């Protein structure tokens, strides 16, 4: 099982000090956080993509390539790549390049983006969100698997005899997850391709996650990629830890109360009971996270959000220490013990390459 963190990349004033990092400081902090994640033994670092303030990660492959150069082992991913407003040709090129530069240490998570004003900046309309996600990904999927593509669709100019370069590393396209909070169409899309499905999970009650994951698993089996419990599932999570619970609640409350997404709304107590947010001791995080398995099944990837709402860098790095030292080693052991042998790990470049070379030249997903 993979454990890691995902960042939204928000520039938010620290409500306890009134200090707001500059964009430069936030970008540097993102790199520091990714390096720390590798140092403490996490498996995945993922960055969001946004094209509006107060967010900095508008050019994720630039940041990820820089991080790739400074790390050796950690898998780099996105949370999410905007499949709606980004030209699939650019995604194919940017991420294939990143795949080469990182020696295959990447995958991607597709997302639609829910900020209405962003769509028209890229010539799109949020009401086309689902059709854009479906058509654009179909093209991206083809661009990575066919050397010469002839294509026409509804949302971009047709392609005649087009080759996306560079070709994917070793002829293996990066593994793709599809992220969604509540759209069954996206769970269906992930199932159709046999791709991974990531449930953001953090802002909504578990009942939604359960429904979405169950749908994805059922349809994954329907499309013949394996049994439902072999589908590739990822979950988000959100934690803040101190050695003891009371300190965690006391220290996190001002950040919670003023957070951009849910601040000035429900109380910390209401939100922790209704969503996966866990504010407490490492042991509480362990127990809560193991509980996810009860409604999502045996899953392959757990990512936490730890660096938002104005939390200062030293605090975030402390959180990573706690994750790496006290939480993840226990979770790794516990989850591994619970997982039946026929449930696979999340595919990586190494495993996909091994599978491709053992099963002969069929790189193309037959469909």
């Amino acid at each position, binding site marked *: 099982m993979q454990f890691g963190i995902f960042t939204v990349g928000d520039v938010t004033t620290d409500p306890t000090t009134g200090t707001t990092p500059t964009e430069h400081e936030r970008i540097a902090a993102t790199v520091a956080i990714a390096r720390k994640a590798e140092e403490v033994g996490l498996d995945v670092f993922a960055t969001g993509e946004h094209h509006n303030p107060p967010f900095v990660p508008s050019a994720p492959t630039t940041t990820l390539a820089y991080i790739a150069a400074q790390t050796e082992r950690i898998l780099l991913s996105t949370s999410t790549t905007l499949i709606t407003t980004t030209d699939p040709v650019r995604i194919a090129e940017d991420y294939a390049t990143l795949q080469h530069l990182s020696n295959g240490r990447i995958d991607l998570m597709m997302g639609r983006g829910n900020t209405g004003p962003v769509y028209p900046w890229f010539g799109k309309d949020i009401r086309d969100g689902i059709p854009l996600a479906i058509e654009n990904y179909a093209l991206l999927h083809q661009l990575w698997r066919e050397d010469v593509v002839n294509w026409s669709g509804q949302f971009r100019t047709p392609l005649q005899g087009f080759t996306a370069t560079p070709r994917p590393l070793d002829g293996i396209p990066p593994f793709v997850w599809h992220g969604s909070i509540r759209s069954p169409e996206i769970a269906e899309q992930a199932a159709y391709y046999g791709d991974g499905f990531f449930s953001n999970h953090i*802002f*909504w009650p578990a009942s939604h996650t359960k429904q979405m994951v169950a749908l994805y698993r059922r349809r994954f089996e329907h499309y013949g990629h394996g049994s439902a419990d072999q589908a590739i599932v990822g979950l988000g999570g959100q934690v803040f830890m101190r050695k003891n619970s009371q300190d965690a609640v006391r220290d996190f409350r001002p950040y919670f109360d003023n957070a951009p997404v*849910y601040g*000035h*709304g*429900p109380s910390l107590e209401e*939100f922790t009971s*209704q*969503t996966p947010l866990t504010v407490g001791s490492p042991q509480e995080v362990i127990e809560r996270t193991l509980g996810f398995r009860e409604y999502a099944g045996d899953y392959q990837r757990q990512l936490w959000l730890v660096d938002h709402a104005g939390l200062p860098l030293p605090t975030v790095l402390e959180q990573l220490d706690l994750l790496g030292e006290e939480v993840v080693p226990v979770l790794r052991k516990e989850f591994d013990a619970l997982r039946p042998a026929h449930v696979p790990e999340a595919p990586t470049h190494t495993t996909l390459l091994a599978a491709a070379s053992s099963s002969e030249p069929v790189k193309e997903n037959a469909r």
Partner: protein
Amino acid sequence: MTTSHLAVITAGLTQPSSTRLLADRLTDAVVRSLRETNDEVVVEVVEVRDVAHDLTNHVLTGFASPELQVRLDAIAEADAVIVVTPIYAASFSGLFKMLIDVLPTDALRDTPVLLGATGGTARHSLAIEHALRPLFAHLGALVAPVGVFAASDDWGSADAGLLGERITRAGRSFAGLITGTSKTRLPDPFDEVTPFATLLQGSSRA
């Protein structure tokens, strides 16, 4: 015999509230009329005040608390809905509208809805027509043609009996909308004449 599920949304703020009072009387009238035709009725009352904080949280976070969710489910699953809101600043109350805003899309489509409103003076009587009716038309509800507005006067004046009559009429008409019964024929005044003794009693209306 069928069982109808009736949801009642009442958005009064005080305890007791005249809005709740009107909601209860409308509910009684509807239930009585439905039972005349042997229909069983299950009533679910949603006091909006009870979930005021949950509504704000829902608007901010995008999901309902368990307490709010059971109420949203009751409304979405109801066969018919009675709504009663106080009139503030010439329209439905903001809290009432928040609940309507977070109902699932199409929750009220093709659902019979009876409109009720309360206000300080009879000068707001048409708020049902200019504020509530367009809102529920937008939601695709089958809005009952007869709504009931109750002003402070209606509760206290000698004419208060007229409110009861309006409530009964609205209830009967709404029950007909729910069960799909055709309207009852008006009696032919030449067929059965009102006895003069009754006429002499004059204004003693129901």
